[in-house]
């Protein structure tokens, strides 16, 4: 392999890795937390701390709830002007929009049910487009009681979307940035492998007693190589999941005519009406359809529960009910769809087994989204995600360590900026996440707009952590260590401890209860993880204090050349 080739790969790995590494930290960390997103929801919303329930009666309990759901105000304000055609008549008021679809989604880990409604836009600009104003609701399946919107699901509706969209949905720009970061991860993994001459040896090389630069690089290589298939796989499948809708929306742009033509043909072939007929019709018993679906799955030797249910063209003669099986016992998400005529309950279609290409896609995306019930594998996913975080963080540390002495001599601020950003996206990010949980316990449960305050607290705490990192970064200009690392470790430990104590005080679900006397592992798991984090943060803070005290003597200057850069790896 030529030196030129290796040097270009080194440049790419260093600079793309640095620029997008800050985004990748967010993806890997919040992705790791997302494995237990529903458990974090239980911690954040104490009224939902009960065991997952069997699906209640749709006809008696869930349909009445859906019929009371109103179109979301934000969705209406944002999208009605875009979808409505003013030349056809006045805009229909929000509360008069007709219902078009109902859906319901459940997982084996969720005690509560997520449900939603799609409302039609009566006078749309493009009648063939998907003209819906949406609404969502969450219910307690034991009683049909609605969980208020103000109660933010910190796990599944904040940490989880953070990892794929940075919670920045303006024109989906966050999703695009994450896409670029995912692309960078693939490029960095491949270029990282190309840069390294002795990749197999790196599985077993970690010299913690050497200078920080050497041990940071050892750990960077180790964590990169040990979980290389995991890192590559998650970046690849993450991009794949959003590929057809966001990253390469070829079917919705260049090939939209062909796509639409196909959808109509597909609906005709399946016998599932693509459009409303305009003739009203009642809804037969959905509970009977659910029972029939379960009977048919059992007859195919795959007895299971309902994972997803959708009613299309509500109230119309063309209405049909699609019932999908939950995939908690295998990798693919939901499948084995059975479709019923809504007015009569007769089976219109049973989805055939998937083709090879579909199976591969479902398997790959299902491995990423892991809705399956396998606790060991889920914890291994968390470990993989955290190894990814260590890989990226040690990359930052190595970058700074390699250059700070040179920059100090030359009076440059580059290492100082990178190090401050590293503090922000390593300790700062974790502080923001835990701080949000603390705020969640401090604010009253019935507070209006509680979720919005929690989100504001998250961003505010993170910005404060960033300011702290920059303000304290002075020593880097002299080739030293930023004390913000140590200080934020202490702050994190205190916040973790506070979160656990506050949970015990505000809900009575302390660890002795949730582990021993009345076990409830979702909450116990979060509390124990917070305590473990506090322990690691204290250990790190003390190590850093020792290192800072020991780093008083001047660090010899180093001049790196391109050859030395290549040799260092």
């Amino acid at each position, binding site marked *: 392999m030529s030196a*030129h*080739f290796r040097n*270009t*790969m080194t*440049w*790419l790995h260093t*600079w*793309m890795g640095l620029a997008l590494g800050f985004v990748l930290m967010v993806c890997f960390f919040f992705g790791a937390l997302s494995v237990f997103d529903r458990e974090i929801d239980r911690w954040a919303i104490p009224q939902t701390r009960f065991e997952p329930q069997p699906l209640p009666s749709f006809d008696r309990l869930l349909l009445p709830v859906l019929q009371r759901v109103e179109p979301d105000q934000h969705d209406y304000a944002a999208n009605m002007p875009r979808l409505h055609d003013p030349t056809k008549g006045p805009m229909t008021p929000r509360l008069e929009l007709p219902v078009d679809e109902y859906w319901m989604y459940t997982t084996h880990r969720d005690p509560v049910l997520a449900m939603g409604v799609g409302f039609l836009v009566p006078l749309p600009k493009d009648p063939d487009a998907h003209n819906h104003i949406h609404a969502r609701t969450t219910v307690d399946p034991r009683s049909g009681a609605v969980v208020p919107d103000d109660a933010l699901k910190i796990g599944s509706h904040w940490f989880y979307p953070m990892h794929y969209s940075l919670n920045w949905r303006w024109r989906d720009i966050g999703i695009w940035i994450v896409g670029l970061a995912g*692309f960078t991860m*693939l*490029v960095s993994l*491949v*270029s990282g492998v190309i840069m390294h001459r002795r990749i197999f040896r790196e599985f077993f090389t970690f010299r913690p007693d050497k200078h920080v630069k050497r041990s940071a690089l050892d750990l960077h290589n180790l964590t990169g190589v040990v979980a290389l298939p995991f890192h590559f796989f998650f970046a*690849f499948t993450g*991009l*794949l999941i959003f*590929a*057809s809708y966001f990253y*390469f929306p*070829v*079917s919705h742009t*260049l*090939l939209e*005519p*062909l*796509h639409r*033509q*196909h959808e109509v043909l*597909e609906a005709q072939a399946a016998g599932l009406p693509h459009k409303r007929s305009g003739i009203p019709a009642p809804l037969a018993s959905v509970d009977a359809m659910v029972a029939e679906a379960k009977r048919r799955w059992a007859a195919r030797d795959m007895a299971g529960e309902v994972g997803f249910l959708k009613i299309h063209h509500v109230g119309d003669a063309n209405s049909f009910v699609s019932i999908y099986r939950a995939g908690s016992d295998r990798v693919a998400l939901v499948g084995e769809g059975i479709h019923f005529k809504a007015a009569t309950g007769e089976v219109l279609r049973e989805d055939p087994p998937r*083709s090879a*290409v*579909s199976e*591969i*896609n479902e398997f*790959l995306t299902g491995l990423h989204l892991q809705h399956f019930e396998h606790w060991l594998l889920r914890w291994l996913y968390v470990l993989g995600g955290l190894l990814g975080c260590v890989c990226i963080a040690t990359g930052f540390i190595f970058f700074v360590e390699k250059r700070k002495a040179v920059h100090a001599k030359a009076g440059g601020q580059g290492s100082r900026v990178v190090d401050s950003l590293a503090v922000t996206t390593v300790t700062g990010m974790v502080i923001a996440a835990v701080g949000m949980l603390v705020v969640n316990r401090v604010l009253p449960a019935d507070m209006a707009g509680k979720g919005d305050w929690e989100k504001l607290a998250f961003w505010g705490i993170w910005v404060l952590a960033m300011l702290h990192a920059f303000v304290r970064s002075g020593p880097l200009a002299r080739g030293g260590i930023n004390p913000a690392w140590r200080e934020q470790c202490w702050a994190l430990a205190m916040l973790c401890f506070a979160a656990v104590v506050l949970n015990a005080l505000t809900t009575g679900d302390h660890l002795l209860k949730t582990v021993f006397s009345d076990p409830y592992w979702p909450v116990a798991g979060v509390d124990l993880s917070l305590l473990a984090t506090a322990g690691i943060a204290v250990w790190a803070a003390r190590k850093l204090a020792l290192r800072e005290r020991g780093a008083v003597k001047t660090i010899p200057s180093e001049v790196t050349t391109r050859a030395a850069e290549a040799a260092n790896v």
Partner: protein
Amino acid sequence: MARQRAAFAHPTRRLLILIPGSYAFTWGFIALGVTGLVSLGVDFHEAETAMMLLAFLVFPSLFLWAFASPRPGRAMALLFGGAAFMVSAAWAIQRGLLV
């Protein structure tokens, strides 16, 4: 030619041109792949799924090849030219498939 090469030599500039270039080529690859497969009788969604699976293998590989190429001008021409050709071909095939 030498001035072009010098302008393109800086790695940051190469990066900023070759990421869109590889993206465009991959877009064309997907479009041509989908329309080609559909014209051979493959179901549309199957064709789309198959091309998406290939896209994220093609995209980074293409980018890495182009970035490391000792003739960056040729790489750029191949990427953008190839994209234009494939998009046009896909458009033409689509017109033939629409009823």
